[in-house]
């Protein structure tokens, strides 16, 4: 198991390295007028050139990239070109915001889609039709559009939830819950397609021979379902949840815009539009790192649930 985790971690580090290096290289080679963007409307060409020299933007792309990499390896992701805020600090204030929204959304999605999927698989009937319908409908609705509708109905008309903003959990747990309810709801509704995966994997497992054999030994359907079927249906479910996490992490970029949530997505979007290279690179590297960690957790869960995985 330890070897398994080590292998995954190592591959994760390589992943972070490759993705950020690729992004870095593309950006450094992209030829944006970063200095002009920093200095704003009133700057003269001389001033722009001067600032570019200060930031080392006039050097070849590979050299800038090498510098960034060297610093990054020592844990220094640099400072924002614009605010001089250390990138790590910027991320440390934004990442918890996004993670608290996304992880909550993933958990709610997991619980709901597992419940609905199992019910649909076992009971069929209206739950099944609902799950199938939901799969089509939520697959078609852009979640940010859903967010707009939720805001106008629940925040502006019914005034049940705040329309915008984010309240840190430590400041006020109730306020936190209220502030993330609508964003989480928009993400969760978009993620309910996972119920369909649960449904089909449960149906698949129910068709497996050992289910019949276990029942032939006098076990109740309930016990077979809750212990054996659930555990066997878990791996595809966990895979879907890890994909849902990745998807929601991306989806949060758009959702954060609607709800004015100061998360990684807002940071990434602003940094990208501004051309704040250190921030963009930082966001990409840290996001990939988060994904690696989440996938690792899911892999470990998977290994714990399914002894075969541990061996492979």
């Amino acid at each position, binding site marked *: 198991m330890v070897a398994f985790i080590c292998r995954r971690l190592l591959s994760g580090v390589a992943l972070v390295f490759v993705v950020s290096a690729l992004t870095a290289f593309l950006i450094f080679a992209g030829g944006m007028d970063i200095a002009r963007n920093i200095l704003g409307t009133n700057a003269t060409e001389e001033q722009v050139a001067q600032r570019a020299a200060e930031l080392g933007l006039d050097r070849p792309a590979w050299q800038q990239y090498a510098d960034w990499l060297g610093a990054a390896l020592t844990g220094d992701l640099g400072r924002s070109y614009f605010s001089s805020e250390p990138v790590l600090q910027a991320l440390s204030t934004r990442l918890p915001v996004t993670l608290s929204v996304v992880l909550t959304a993933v958990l709610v999605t997991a619980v709901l889609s597992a419940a609905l999927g199992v019910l649909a698989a076992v009971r069929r009937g209206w739950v099944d039709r609902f799950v199938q319908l939901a799969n089509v409908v939520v697959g078609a609705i852009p979640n940010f559009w859903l967010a707009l509708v939720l805001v106008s109905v629940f925040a502006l008309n019914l005034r049940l939830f705040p329309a915008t903003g984010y309240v840190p959990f430590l400041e006020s747990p109730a306020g936190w819950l209220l502030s993330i309810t609508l964003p989480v709801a928009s993400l969760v509704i978009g993620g309910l397609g996972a119920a369909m995966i649960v449904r089909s994997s449960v149906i698949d497992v129910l068709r497996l021979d050992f289910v019949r054999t276990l029942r032939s030994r006098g076990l109740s359907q309930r016990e077979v*379902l809750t212990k054996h079927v659930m555990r066997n249906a878990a791996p595809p479910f966990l895979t879907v949840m890890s994909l849902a996490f990745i998807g929601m992490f991306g989806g949060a970029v758009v959702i954060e815009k*609607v709800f004015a949530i100061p998360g990684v997505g807002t940071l990434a979007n602003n940094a990208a539009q501004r051309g704040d290279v250190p921030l963009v690179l930082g966001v990409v590297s840290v996001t990939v790192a988060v994904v690696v960690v989440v996938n690792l957790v899911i892999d470990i869960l998977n290994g714990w649930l399914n002894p075969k995985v541990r061996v492979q």
Partner: protein
Amino acid sequence: MPMTNKRRLSVLAAAAVAVLALSACTGQDGSSGGGDDQGPRTLKLGVSSELLSYDPVDLNGGGEGNLLWMPVYDRLLTITPDNGLEPGLATEWAFDDSFSVLTLELRDGVTFSDGAPFTAETVKANIENLKASSSTEAGIVAPIEEVVPVDENTVEFHLASYDPTLLYQLGLAAGVMASPEALGTEEIKLNPVGSGPYTLDDQGSVRGSELIYVKNDEHWNSDAYPYETLVFKTYQDITARLNAAKSGEVDGAPITSAAAAEAEAAGLTITNTPAGWLGLGLFDRAGQIAPELADVRVRQAINYAFDKQAILENVEQGYGYATSQTFAEGQPGYDPELDNRYEYDPEKARELLAEAGYPDGFDLTIPDLPHMAAYTPIIADQLKDVGINVTIKPVAPTDTLAEMFGGQNAAFAMEFGGTSIGQITALSTQSVWNIFKSTDEELSQLVSVAYKATEEDEQDKTYREVNRWVVDNAWFAPWYMKDSIFVTSSEVTVEPWVTNVTPLISSFAPAK
């Protein structure tokens, strides 16, 4: 197969209902009690963009930024809402007769938030720091050849040339005084070290979303600032910003005209003031890349082509007034007659084009600047009506500034605020806004006369000459003077800052 975990599901459903009910309750509690917990002494404002850096060299005079940095930085002079000047860190100021030396008497006993005292040496350090920087504001203090501390509380600016905008600028970013210890450090970008009426609460603030300022009771003009705490929340989108204002999450916020009716309906108070002119900038007046624009008749034809009143009413909901000049009403140099100089007249436009030798019009490319996205299609369409075939060139947000100031576009949609003297300065070949470095001897003559005017009457007269020349020669195609709109809740009163996007922070007060 019969189902067996029905009970479990119903428990789950009950739990979900309980959570919803709970959140609904706290929701009502939260919204009713939210305004009181911090007391009326807290002013919460929504802004559309974050302030990226507190480094004095990164500050500039335009836009919302003022609202965010003015609380922490005193300037040498203080600007009033009607653009008058009052004592700031300088208590008295005077030019010598030749306008080559500006003498400032400095306020005594001012200290910065790091404990450093404010002295004549401080002024010298700040001005020199700004001059040496690549900041956009460096050009403003460039005429200050030397800063000479006469004594602890007196400083002289030795000027290479007289710039009539200098005093006004010393009330804005160019006059910002920061602790000399902090100048040039990376740290000051994040944490301002000024002597302003407020200090930044670094611990409480969350950059990019919420900035908190606490009152500096030591401040020399502390009484002018009624709030103990200022909170600035960033909402990039107008929808989020208005939602925040409507739901009471903020006491005030700048909004767009599109949101004004909704804000009014929600019981918010609207404060509006002409902030700047909006229209089409015609920059290639020598015809370097668009030869047609070299002909003044073509530029005039373009001016005639826009149905300014209709655009104003439909796009801005009438927030503003139609005009053909760049000088704002009530400002020196404003000429009421020029408002109607180019009344909408497509027939006349076609005639002028024909006279200029383009009876069938011509092709013109304008960039689709993201921040002017709503206006560019209107420009294209209205110009098409008079025969000018406009191609809209896509622009990536990251390329916006390069497209504007890189000399790649002969004309583009623009919005330009500021005082009359600001309008005049923008005509100079030194200004970035003079993109193709257009010059004209007559204009230069008029400008140099206007620069020397110090008396109010004289200023009005000479500025008016410049104004008239620019309008007659159609250097721009203004449509209207656009209002800035600021909404406030019933808890707050505010006075607008003429020709600016947001009010001054000193203009906010609790409602009686």
